[in-house]
């Protein structure tokens, strides 16, 4: 049996933070210029008390309401999040209960950021291929807005909250519809995209809450997300072209055989740089971030859904998914589009 994507839905929180909103709050930030470069105009922000599980449940219910399947047919729940409701239990367990998925289903969280969706597809591919599951609800959900400092321009202009729900089902097909996969990790880059305090290494304390200002006038404490944009850029342009080449070799295809490239939607500047460097035609390159920003592990499923709605993915289309980011972690896979429910 082969894993196949059957349906994708996503949910964006109701509250928004636009270029205009940020410009009004921080006129000195030159937000118009920042957003022109990043391609982001609107970020959706979770409400106070609205957590990753809440967003994920809404995305999943949207998927169930579309008629793709009913909750009682799900036999495994995978949740990719870096902002879980609690340290424990797994947020996926809480979601199982809220969605009334059978207690015979497996459920667990995995902690990855922008590479997470590709890893999630890999997990689902393995679970279905080995007969451990036949109908998987792969969820991605994050509320980065809750961990960044509102006076840190380097991250506040970039990240938005979201959740996506993907249904993967077992199909009796002779060849894989997802794969091959190429993965990579470089933990030496960990300090360049990190929340330094709040884990077991350095628990929250009055000291970790002390704010300071960096050389670019960004304000944050050790309780807040820190991102070294320059280091992340260098990492991305170093790793992604090699990742794509490795996947093409593993799949025994050429760049021209790919119908659509769906990268993690970090920001338009870096995506355009990569597209030109790899000589990928613009018409084969999905860009979906203007109205939601960088939603971490949700960017790829959101972009896939939008590509399908725009008619850029049809049954049989070959898509390359490329995730890269916090960790450093990266992964890429090929997808033969089955057509969505």
């Amino acid at each position: 049996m082969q894993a196949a994507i059957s349906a994708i839905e996503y949910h964006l929180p109701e509250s928004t933070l636009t270029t205009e909103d940020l410009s009004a709050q921080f006129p000195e930030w030159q937000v118009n210029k920042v957003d022109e470069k990043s391609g982001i105009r609107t970020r959706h922000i979770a409400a106070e008390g609205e957590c990753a599980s809440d967003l994920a449940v809404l995305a999943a219910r949207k998927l169930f309401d579309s008629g793709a399947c009913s909750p009682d047919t799900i036999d495994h729940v995978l949740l990719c999040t870096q902002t879980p409701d609690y340290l424990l239990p797994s947020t996926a367990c809480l979601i199982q209960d809220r969605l009334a998925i059978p207690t015979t289903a497996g459920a667990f969280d995995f902690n990855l950021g922008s590479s997470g969706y590709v890893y999630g597809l890999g997990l689902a591919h393995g679970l279905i291929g080995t007969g451990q599951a036949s109908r998987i609800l792969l969820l991605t959900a994050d509320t980065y807005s809750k961990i960044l400092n509102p006076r840190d321009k380097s991250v506040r202009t970039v990240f938005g909250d979201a959740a996506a729900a993907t249904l993967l089902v077992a199909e009796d097909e002779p060849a894989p519809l997802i794969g091959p996969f190429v993965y990579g990790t470089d933990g030496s880059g960990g300090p360049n995209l990190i929340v330094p305090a709040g884990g077991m290494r350095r628990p929250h304390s009055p000291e970790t809450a002390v704010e300071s200002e960096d050389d670019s006038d960004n304000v944050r404490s050790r309780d807040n997300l820190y991102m070294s944009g320059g280091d992340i850029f260098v990492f991305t342009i170093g790793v992604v072209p090699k990742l794509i080449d490795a996947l093409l070799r593993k799949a025994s295809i050429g760049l021209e055989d790919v119908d659509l490239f769906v990268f993690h939607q970090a920001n338009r500047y870096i995506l355009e740089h990569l597209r030109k460097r790899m000589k990928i035609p613009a018409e084969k390159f999905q860009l979906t971030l203007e109205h939601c920003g960088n939603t971490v592990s949700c960017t790829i499923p959101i972009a896939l859904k939008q590509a399908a709605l725009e008619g850029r993915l049809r049954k049989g289309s070959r898509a390359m998914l490329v995730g890269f980011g916090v960790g450093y972690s990266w992964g890429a896979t090929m997808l033969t589009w089955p057509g969505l429910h």
Partner: protein
Amino acid sequence: MTAQEFLLEMDDILELPAGTLAGPEGLDTLAQWNSSAMISFIALADTHGARVAVRQVAGCATVADLMRLAGVRE
């Protein structure tokens, strides 16, 4: 990329009129030399085959230093 081409690219990155930069300018004297401009410089170097690290850029004091880092001959 020639030195002149590099300087014109840097004029654009730093939002200066074309032909402004000559090389000796101190980066700390240029109002638009910020984290965003640094990324644009790294992208420019990458486009022309030079892989530079953030710490290398941080070690540059002048536009001419950036030019050398990008592998451009003066």
